C-alpha cells in the first residue's frame, strides 16, 4: 500500500489526465462541501436555539407552588401550597451534590420615587445566588450579598432602564430611592441580554422584603441550578427526585399535576435536541445522497479509465502482474482521488465556515461550525467511498485478458 512505485504510477496516471482527474474529483469534493455545510447549518440552528435560552443559566430548575387538584394525605383538594424559607434549606440539605446555586424569589411591586421621578416596577426579592441563576450582569456597583440578607438591609440592585427613568443623568449608586415610601440605597445596576423588560426590574434582599411584608417566611418560588456536569438525562432524573421530595414534603399526591410546578430547562433542551437531531439526520441523509452521486461519478470515470487502459493492463499481466496487484492499483487510485478531492471540499467548507461563521449571529442561526468528529467521520466515509467507487472497475480491470494486449495488430 505504501509502495513508492504504486504511488508513482498513480501520480503518473493522474498527471497525464489532469482535466479528467479534476472533473472526477470535483463531484466528490462538492458532495463533501455540501455535506459539511449542511451539518454546519444544523449546528448553527442548534446554537441559535441554545442562545435563545442563554439568558438564564441553561441548567436551571424553577419550583413554583400551585393548588392541589387531588385529595391526599387527609387534605382535601383545592389546597393552596405555600413555599417557605425552610423549603430552601430543605432542598439544599437534601441534594448537596446536585444543587449548584439556589435562591428563593419573593415577588412584589413597588412604586419607586427619586426626587420628582416616579415609576412602577416589579421587585424580585432574592438570595445572592440568584445572580448566577439569572446570569444577571452587574455593570456598576455590586449584587446583593450575604451581609445584606443577614442585616435585612434596605438595598436595591436596579435595572439599567430603571436607572435611566429615575436618575436621568445622575449617578444612581449610593443614592436613596423610595419604594412605596421606604428608602432603599442603590448598590448596583445591572443589564440583561434577554430583553428590555428584564432591565425594568429591581432586585432586593429577600429577608428585607419578608420583614416589610409582615415578618413572613413565605416565598413565591425557588430557582436553582444543578451541577453543570449533568447531561440531560441526569438532570431530568434529578428534577424528578426533587419533585418527589417536594410533593412528599407538602403532602401532594404524586400524580397531582397542579400542586407543584417544577420547570426544568433540560426538558426544553430535550425537545430542541431531538428537533435538531432530526435536522441533522436529514442533513446527513441529503449529504450522503449527493455523495453517492459523486461516488457513481468516480466509478464511472474509473470504468472509462480501465477501458482506456485495457491494453496497458494486458501488458502488465503479460509481464507477470497478478490480478490482486491490478485491483490494488485501481482501488488506490480511486481512494486517492476521492480522499484528496474530498479533503479539498472539506477544507473549502471549513475555511468558509471559519471566515463567516462567527459573524453570523441571528436569533435562530448562530456560528455555524463543524466539530472534529464530523471531520473524522467524513474522512472515513471518503475512504470507504473511494473503495466502493473503485471496486467494480478494479474487478473489471483484474479480469482483463492479457491476450488483448497481443491481439491488436
Amino acid at each position, binding site marked *: 500500500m505504501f509502495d513508492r*512505485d504504486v504511488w508513482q504510477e498513480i501520480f503518473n496516471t493522474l498527471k497525464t489526465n489532469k482535466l479528467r482527474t479534476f472533473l472526477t474529483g470535483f463531484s466528490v469534493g462538492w458532495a463533501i462541501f455540501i455535506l459539511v455545510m449542511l451539518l454546519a447549518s444544523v449546528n448553527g440552528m442548534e446554537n441559535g436555539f441554545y442562545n435563545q435560552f442563554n439568558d438564564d443559566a441553561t441548567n436551571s430548575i424553577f419550583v413554583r407552588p400551585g393548588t392541589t387538584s387531588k385529595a391526599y394525605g387527609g387534605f382535601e383538594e383545592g389546597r393552596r401550597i405555600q413555599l417557605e424559607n425552610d423549603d430552601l434549606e430543605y432542598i439544599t440539605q437534601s441534594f448537596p451534590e446536585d444543587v449548584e446555586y439556589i435562591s428563593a424569589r419573593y415577588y412584589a411591586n413597588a412604586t419607586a420615587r427619586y426626587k420628582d421621578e416616579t415609576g412602577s416596577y416589579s421587585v424580585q426579592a432574592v438570595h445572592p445566588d440568584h445572580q448566577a441563576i439569572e446570569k444577571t450582569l452587574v455593570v456598576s456597583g455590586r449584587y446583593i450579598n450575604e451581609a445584606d440578607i443577614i442585616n435585612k438591609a434596605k438595598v436595591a440592585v436596579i435595572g439599567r432602564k430603571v436607572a435611566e427613568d429615575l436618575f436621568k443623568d445622575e449617578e444612581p449608586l449610593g443614592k436613596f430611592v423610595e419604594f412605596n415610601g421606604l428608602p432603599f440605597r442603590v448598590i448596583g445596576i445591572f443589564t440583561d441580554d434577554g430583553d428590555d423588560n428584564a432591565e425594568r426590574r429591581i432586585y432586593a434582599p429577600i429577608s428585607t422584603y419578608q420583614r416589610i411584608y409582615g415578618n413572613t417566611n413565605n416565598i413565591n418560588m425557588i430557582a436553582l441550578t444543578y451541577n453543570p456536569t449533568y447531561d440531560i438525562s441526569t438532570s431530568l432524573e434529578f428534577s424528578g427526585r426533587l419533585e418527589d421530595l417536594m410533593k412528599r414534603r407538602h403532602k401532594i399526591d404524586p400524580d397531582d399535576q397542579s400542586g407543584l410546578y417544577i420547570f426544568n430547562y433540560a426538558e426544553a433542551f430535550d425537545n430542541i435536541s431531538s428537533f435538531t437531531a432530526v435536522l441533522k439526520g436529514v442533513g446527513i441523509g441529503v449529504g450522503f445522497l449527493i455523495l453517492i452521486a459523486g461516488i457513481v461519478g468516480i466509478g464511472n470515470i474509473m470504468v472509462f479509465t480501465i477501458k482506456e487502459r485495457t*491494453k496497458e493492463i494486458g501488458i502488465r499481466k503479460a*509481464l*507477470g502482474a*497478478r490480478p490482486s496487484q491490478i485491483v490494488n492499483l485501481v482501488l488506490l487510485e480511486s481512494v486517492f482521488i476521492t480522499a484528496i478531492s474530498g479533503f479539498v471540499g472539506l477544507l473549502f467548507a471549513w475555511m468558509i465556515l471559519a471566515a463567516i461563521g462567527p459573524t453570523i449571529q441571528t436569533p435562530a442561526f448562530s456560528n455555524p461550525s463543524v466539530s472534529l468528529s464530523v471531520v473524522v467521520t467524513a474522512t472515513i466515509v471518503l475512504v470507504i467511498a473511494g473503495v466502493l467507487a473503485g471496486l467494480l472497475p478494479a474487478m473489471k480491470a483484474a479480469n482483463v485478458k492479457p491476450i488483448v*494486449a*497481443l491481439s491488436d495488430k
Partner: protein
Amino acid sequence: MIEIKDLHKSYKMGSNVLHVLKGINFKVEEGELVAIMGSSGSGKSTLLNILGMLDGADSGEYTLDGVPIKNLSETKAAQYRNKFLGFIFQSFNLINYKSALENVALPLYYQKVPRKERQEKALKYLERVGLKPWADHLPSELSGGQKQRVAIARAMAAEPKVLLADEPTGALDSTTSYEVMDLIQKINDDGNTILVVTHEEDIAHMCKRIVHLKDGVIVEDKKIEQVRAEQYV
C-alpha cells in the same frame, strides 16, 4: 525446454466452432532459435498465446522447463509468465508514460525485486541493447527500432527461460528489422531460447529452425542454415 503433445484449440464463433489448432506436436530444446511461420489464420498466433499462457488449450499437454502447464489460476499464470517467459510484441507495447528504464524494470517489479537492484538490472539490460543513454527517455521520444530494443530488454530483464516474439519486426522497416534480428541472434548466441512468430521469409531464415503451420497443423519442421543479420546492418 518446451514440449507440446497433441495440442487442440477451437474457438466458438457464434454457432460455428473454429478449430484453430488441430493436434500440434512440437519440441524446443534449450538454446534454440525457432521461427514459427504461417499465413494469417494458420494458428501461429494462437499457438504463441498458448505457449505464453495467455490462453488455455482445449486438450493436449504442454510442459515448460519440466513444469506441466495446465488449469492455471490467474495468479499462478501471472507468476509463471513472470518467471518463465519474456514477451516481445509487434507493436512494442511499452507503457507510454514510463521511461525506457521504468519499462524495462517493470517485470522485475512484479518479481518483487527491490527498487535499487531493479534499476541496476534494468540499466544493465538497456546497455546490452545499446540504449543506456536513452534510459530516461519516454517511448514517444524513441524511434521504432529503439522501442523494440527497449521491449527486448524488458523481456530479458526478468531472465526468463524462453523469449516469445510475436512479429517482432512487423512494424519496422527492413534495415531496422535486421538490427532487431541481429540483437535477437546475439541474445540467442548467449544461450537463450527464443521463439519468433513471423510471416516474413527473410526474418525466418535468420533463425536456426523453421516450423511451418498451415490450417492448424505443422506441415514442415526443418533446421536451416542461419543467415546472420549482421551483414545487412
